């Protein structure tokens, strides 16, 4: 999942630095992720993992780092499996 997220982030995140230079914990907003680009990343992730972000997870915190995105996606997949 980490690889896919990194690949999408590199493709649509519009970051001024290569994704390979970012740690999983790096603050993506400080790295230059704009709010517009974060929506593009969300859309790409919804498509790639066949999920939908509930409104409660559509906030800055969920997309603050690669690790945060991973946790958010994992949480959605888990709650879907439980349902």
């Amino acid at each position, binding site marked *: 999942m980490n690889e896919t997220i990194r690949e999408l982030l590199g493709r649509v995140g519009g970051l001024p630095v290569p994704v390979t230079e970012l740690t999983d914990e790096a603050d993506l*907003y*400080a*790295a*230059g992720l704009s*709010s517009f680009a974060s929506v593009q990343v*969300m859309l790409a992730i919804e498509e790639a993992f066949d999920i939908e972000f509930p409104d*409660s997870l*559509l*906030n800055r915190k969920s997309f603050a780092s690669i690790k945060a995105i991973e946790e958010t996606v994992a949480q959605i997949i888990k709650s879907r499996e439980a349902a």
Partner: protein
Amino acid sequence: MSLAALATDNTLATRAQRVAAVAAEFSDNVDAEGRFPKEAVDAMKAERLLGIQVPAAHGGESASLLEIAEVCSIIGQACASSAMIFAMHHIKLSSLVEHGEESQWHLGFMQEVAGRQLLLGSATTEGGIGGNLRNSICAIEIDGDTCRLTKDATVISYGAQADAILITSRANADAAPSDQVMTVFRKGQYTLEQTHVWDTLGMRGTCSDGFLFKGEAPAEQVFQKPFAEIAAQSMLATCHLLWSGVWFGIAADAVSRAQSFVRAAARKSAGQVPPGALHLAEASNLLQLVKSNLLSGIRTYEDAKADGEKLSSMSFAIAMNNIKIASSQRILDIINKAMLICGIMGYKNGTPYSLGRHLRDAHSAQLMISNDRILANSSTMLLVQKPDFSLLG
């Protein structure tokens, strides 16, 4: 509302009415000369309205956003420029009140704002960023305990009269354009070299000239919270809500003038109403929509404040954007209807029914953070946001 709270509310309204009386007296002159409404702002200070938002424990009155919006509206019915200055001051103050408590310096400064009735200005606009306040070109330089900043601030409303300026910049020389911080600079810690003159269609008294800002201050005056969070969690919402309070005030006064016109005409002709009278009913209807929209927005903000997650959610941002779009557009329709009612007496300056200043001031509403930019921002969020159509919120 409890009786005690109602009594406080009345007091605040009365104080605001006294300021409005002063503002009304000078509003035409302020508009004609494009000068700072000194008399009205002095009256705000004398009535101690500049600190009402500060928690009572820190020397203020813990006024709610609804109460502050009401003051914006009351003053806005008299002089939109004065009301906008009051609103912008409180938008800046909200950053201190909502985010300043974790820093001793900001806490102390907040107390001083209330104690000494300091007027806060804002410098978020910069030459070259294309009007997007979430981007900066300039960067703050932290050198030991000192911070320095130079900014080509194309707009600083009442910059020359403010007692302090809250200014945005990149967090450091290597930071991305959206990685911003906000810093408080007090008068005496900066110089302003005027670069643009505010000679505009309306809102002429806000004196929103452009300046080259150069400041140096202790580094502790930088807000610890990133500006992105300040903007999302308090600034944009209070902007849209308090501006809407001012705009509602402008439209309300236009409707009040139109109503006086119709009433006077009906009295003169034994109940025969002038041909434009139907528009009065329509204007009243639209005014009610603007009011309901604003009130529901304030309630949404108060609810979200109790829940940090909600405050930074997309649905909240879209709701606040919608309030701004709706009130800025509707007030123009309302004032236009008032103009149709008052006819030439509304079109002329210097009559009890004059609406020229209202119309000119109101035209700023769609441009202060351009509605096109806000719609584009909302339409991006709507790509992923999931709708919630429940009436229960």
